[in-house]
């Protein structure tokens, strides 16, 4: 089994946006989806996870609606709003940029400078 990864502050929100952008999901489903995509390498605490959900909903980046889950239970499904989509794109670009810069610096060898 691969080693678990700790998330930097504020990253959880982007991951939730990404998870929801693939299709409406209920809370627990989002959690599972992120873990699944990460290859079970992320350990997400339930407490901070829901705090993140509430904050995103408060910012109107995701919106929740009650519906039926796959095993016929009432569950609250979250989907991305237009503002959420913009936010996701901005955050994604920021991440890729930053990762490229950091990776570029870190991967340099002494003779390349």
């Amino acid at each position, binding site marked *: 089994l691969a080693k678990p990864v700790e998330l930097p502050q504020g990253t959880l929100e982007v991951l939730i946006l990404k998870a929801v952008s693939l299709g409406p999901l209920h809370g627990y489903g989002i959690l599972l989806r992120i873990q699944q995509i990460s290859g079970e390498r992320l350990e997400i605490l339930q407490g901070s996870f829901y705090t993140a959900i509430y*904050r995103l909903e408060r910012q109107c980046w995701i919106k929740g609606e009650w519906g039926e*889950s796959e095993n016929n*239970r*009432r569950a*609250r499904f979250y989907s991305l709003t237009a503002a959420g989509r913009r936010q996701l794109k901005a955050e994604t670009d920021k991440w890729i940029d930053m990762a490229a810069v950091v990776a570029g610096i870190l991967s340099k060898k002494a003779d390349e400078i």
Partner: protein
Amino acid sequence: MAAIRKWWRSIAPRTPSDVEEEFRSTLDAYQDDLIRRGLPEDEAGRRARIELGRSAAQNENYRNAIGLRPFDELGGDIRYSVRGLLKNPGFSVVAILSLALGIGATTAVFSVVYAILIDPFPYANSDRMAHMWVIPSKGDRQFFGITGSQWQQLRKSPVVEDAFIMDNWNLTVTGSDLPEDVHGAYLSSNGFNFLGVPPVLGRGLQPSDAIDGHDPESVAVLGYTFWQRHFHADPSVVGKTIQLVRNNFTIVGVAAPSFTWGDADVYLPLKITGDQIKGFFPEIRLKPGVTHTQADAALQPLIQQFARETPRHFPADTQIKLHVADPDEHFVKDLGPTLYLLFGAVLLLLLIGCGNVSILLLARATSRQHEFAVRSAIGASRRRIIRQLLTEALVLSLTGAGVGLVLAYRTVSVIVANLPQFSFPREAAIQINVPVLLFSIAVAVGTGILFGLSPAWQLSRPEVSQVMQASSRKTIGSVRGRRTHNGLIVGQIALSVLMLAGASAAIEGFLRVAHTRLGYDPHNVMSVGIPIHDGTYKTWPERAAYLERLHSKVAEVPGVTVAAVSSNATPPANGFNTKFEILGKPTAQDQTFRFNLVSHEYFPALRIPLVQGRMWDSAEEHRAAALVVVNQTLARRYFPNGDAVGHSIKVPELVPQPPYLITAPGSDGWMLIVGVIADKLDDGLSRPILPEAFVPFTVAMAMGTQILVRSQGQPLVLLHSVSAAVNSIDRDQQVSNNVRDLEHWISELPEYARGHLVSWLFGAFAALALALAAVGIFSVVSYTVVQRTNEFGIRIALGAKRRHVLWIVCRNIGITVSSGLLAGLLIFVTLQRILTHWIQSSSSSPFILVPVAALFILCAVSACIIPALRAVSIDPMRAVRYE
């Protein structure tokens, strides 16, 4: 309600049950997941609940996430503060009342001061409105009148922006069985525009209502209270007709409630003619930037010219001086010191109240030191503790402020109901003054915050662990802030003593006024005013016969024991002030007396004895014989040999102005003194008796008279039959609508009413101050006792006498109380000259301080003794263990 819900939805879009339902659905999903991974069902449920927590906690999580946490904490703090206050009802009630009394009294008294003295008038540019007086070379300032053409000259003066003139008449409306007295003000047609207060209905008087030299339009504007009283506030009154003394007037408007110029019931256009007989009261508005002194200088020549043209409208003096003043100057002069004094008193009360709260909060803070040490030890941040203390202080002081607001409204209505009538501008709308209310609340809240936060200052000292270990109650060393306490108590006591001393001076002064020997018997006598209508009974025989018939008709009313004509002689302040001459003696400078026009029954009606000579009889009265009766003061001052009777005097200023003042032939000559009566008051309750003289009322008759009616019982029950008797002589004749008995007129005198008001209010405020100070002493002593219970237990266990312990408790507070008492007495003695002048009590006797000091010591001892006795009566074993 819907708006609040909408607002709340925008802050917290999801309901708690919604959040909980989602939580439960997650819980179920997680549990299913765990079962799928192979856990048994009950074990899966247990693990899910352990990992996810309780659903209530989820709601808290939600509220934190959307940023509501500070509000939740604030709510918690408020609940905690309220619980704390409810748990210590004694502390809370005293603290809240201390603040409330201070806020309420200060706001109420300042509101009255503001409304009466600072900004009484609703009129346009009232700061530039001015009243003109003339001051003779000797004597008090007086009114004067000007004629229509003089008014036009006055308006053209370069310092005057505009001026209007007014005349007053008692009119009547008919409708009920007797004509009703109506106070009419005739205004020059620019009057309403000058005063600039829009009427509530219709229009005011306007220039087209009275063109100079023509008869004015028959229009009337109703006064607001008359409209309510007579027309029951009928909104359709405009356009209707009102009959005044059998002339029809069209009602064109109703004046605003605050428009009470001249206290009139109806306002009518004044007829301006070239007539030089009648004088009217002028009122001016100065041009912007013109001072009163400049106006005096600029108008003086004009006024002197008027005085030459119409000498009868001015005091008979060649040296008159014009005095331009604010229209409310005499109110400020009469009532100002009283109100400022009261304001000073309530400011002291506010200070004492705040002092009390400080003492209570400091004491409470010290006893809660342990609590805060524990809280900070288990991780409460300093900021968090300060926030909680702040909340507690605000809950306390805002509750105090709320109660204070209610008290302020109550106090204002009590003061307004007891203000001396006619001693303040009728226009003054007395209502709560918001800036001062805010100021007092700010002072109170500031005090609450300053002293409420005191535990936080203590926490900043790095001895939290020490405090916790010492369990602060066990040692004297930790009795903190003792110096602050003592300082506060000394200040509080000094201020309360100052107030008590001031109050006793005021009460003493009032009692002296109230117990003045009158020299006449006001009991069961009423004065019935009878105004004579313009243009009626214009000659001496007509008017004399009319008054005699009125008098004899009233005397015949069943129940009337004596009826007497008293045209201008109704005590305790009566008579025209005028100069007189004595036949055969040089006229001294300033030789004036009070000149009274009465019928001979005046003396038996008021039970004033004749001490020398004789009274004139009915026949002499009928022919207006030139006979005089003088009082003892006059006889003693001008005839020290006791030979007043037989001398003659003359009143040079008594000149006829028909038809407004009709004199009998011969009244300008020498009049023989035939008798001397015993002294009675003639210049108010607090001033010495002036020389006065009485002549038959037929000697000079103006546009009205009064009939004094003495009866067996309460005279006012006879008023209707007396009015009917008056009306039976002339069907248009009303009696004044302000008939009262003579005892009432005494209590209406400004010096009486003012003293009454000041004594009650000052006394009440001083009693409150005393109570607050006593509570302050009580709480400090009980707090010290509680702090030192262990120590006392140990002392007693080791064999100390209880007496000794009692001495320890009382010694310290004894020193504090005596220094406060001394400080207060010293301040009072220093200020006494100023204070007694303001209180208008001539007493400067230091003996009034003895009962004050005694009362105070009594209160201090009882406030001290209860907790001290508790300390010594405690069982030593329990005291040692006392936590």
